[in-house]
């Protein structure tokens, strides 16, 4: 089962089985934002409360696979209590980690019918993305790094993050939501 342990790290399974901050917040004052993954039908609802430039509380609900649910749980633990600016940085860093190798990934076997074997530009190769990701800065979130080896699942991992970003935008501009 090579590769699977990269995807399903213990931290991920732990957050999947025992999600942190699962639930709802009264909206308003919180922002309620829905995110959908049209490919698989997964959905996540993020409730984010912003007070004086800080994310004072965050909850999520919805249904999804272990990757989308654990990513939401890890996200909630990472951003709660942080200033919005830092949260935005974290969103950027996380999404960079999820996209660094997306374009150069072949399939798991590195082979394509009718073509030469791929050169195996793997997740450990150097990224050419402008934003260099330091996994240490991500703490537990780095556990999700293995997802990039499974390109189809990247959208699962980023679903709650994109939803949160939308919630922060709305909180800032005072547009829909609450």
């Amino acid at each position, binding site marked *: 089962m*090579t590769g699977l342990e990269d995807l399903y790290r213990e931290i991920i399974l732990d957050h999947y089985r025992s999600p942190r901050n699962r639930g709802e917040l009264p909206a308003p004052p919180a922002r309620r934002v829905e995110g959908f993954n049209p490919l698989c039908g997964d959905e996540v609802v993020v409730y984010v409360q912003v007070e004086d430039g800080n994310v004072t509380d965050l909850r999520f609900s919805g249904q999804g696979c272990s990757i989308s649910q654990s990513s939401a749980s890890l996200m909630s633990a990472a951003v709660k209590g942080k200033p919005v600016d830092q949260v935005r940085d974290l969103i950027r860093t996380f999404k960079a980690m999820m996209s660094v190798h997306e374009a150069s990934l072949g399939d798991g076997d590195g082979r394509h019918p009718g073509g030469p074997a791929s050169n195996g530009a793997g997740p450990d190769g150097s990224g050419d993305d402008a934003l260099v990701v330091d996994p240490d800065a991500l703490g537990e979130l780095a556990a999700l790094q293995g997802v990039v080896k499974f390109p189809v699942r990247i959208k*699962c991992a980023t679903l709650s993050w994109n939803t949160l970003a939308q919630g922060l935008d709305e909180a800032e501009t005072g547009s829909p939501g609450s």
Partner: protein
Amino acid sequence: MTAPPGRAGTAPAPARPTTASRGGAEHPRHLDVDAIKKDFPILARTVHGRRLVYLDSAASSQRPQQVLDAMDDYYRTTHANVHRGVYALAEEADRLYETARLTVGRFIGAPDPEHEVIFTKNATEAVNLAAAAWGRANLHRGDAVLLTDMEHHSNLVPWLMLAEEHGVELRWLGVDDDYRLDLSDIERLVDGVKLVACTSMSNVLGTVPPFSHIAEVAHRAGALVLADGAQSVPHVRTDVGELGADFLAFSAHKMLGPTGIGVLWARRELLEEMPAFLGGGGMIRDVRHDGFSPNLLPWKFEAGTPPIAEAVGLGAAIGYLEGIGLDAVHDHEMALTAYAQRTLHERFGDDLRIFGPPGTDQRGGVLSLAFRDVHPHDLAQVLDQAGVCIRAGHHCAKPLMRRLGVNATARASVYLYNDESDVDALADALAEAGSLFGSP
């Protein structure tokens, strides 16, 4: 082999079933699956170092060497654009393309294959053709179409578009707790509708609705009937007369043929009356500054260069299926479905749930699964590592998913090249997923 004509012997005959025992699902005619597997080159490859176990034929089947050879041969020796060419090559291409049309027509029992078989891009385009050409001419504000809760999006969205643009009313046949169509209210629902559009096999549940009965009720009420045959035509012997359909849509790539070609069959009178669908070359008789007159059937509905090599491939696929026999294929799939139901129940008991009719009566070889509370995507991911290909998601049937109360299912589907070892591999991989995602 039907294609390419005049070139018999380029491909070996498909592995045939032994017909020693003829009987019900428990004692089906035996397919020589080992020999059949050898006809499908892709089944010899490995995935993640494991034998490829392909259980996703409901999404797209694989192709035998005979189909690959027919298409390859066509491109190597014959290709030219069809229609209008006066040189030998073009005439040969023309003949192969039109021969494929006749082969398709014969395969589905079309009374007038020469005029009634329209080649499209896929089953989806076939339904869109019917909705756009017949629907726009015949459905007006307040007219009704009866659909079912188990339709694929391809037999929903074209009608939803008409509902949106033309104010067409949509009505729905529900799905009962046995995963079958609820027909208890059909007489009332069908009253006043102009069309009933219904699948002849659910791509999620495997359910085979009593189509000819539905067609009879519909016709009595003055409605036409469209069959979405994408799942049934590859697996069940089809006769449009017996089915009672006025339109039938299906795709080649689910029946051992290539991608890029599908079929709309419709009764000739309907096609004659319908306005053209896509405009362009080939579909016209005359073009003037002030308008055009459409070509004769079937070309009226085939604008632009058609999928010629694909038609040749589809003809070869039908030749392969007929060489084995659709009844033998279906018997084999039902025996395998019964084996899968039994095996999965024995190994996983109530941890595994199948969304679909129990047993093998009035169903196809499609098994939509829920395993404990493991998300279908996670299941599919773990199975992939074991070389087992299944599909996870909503299967383009979101209204049905809502009815089932789930976001997604994991779907395994069988075809003539699958055997009990494939089902065993599925069960083994499910067990692995179970231990990985075991309860805390």
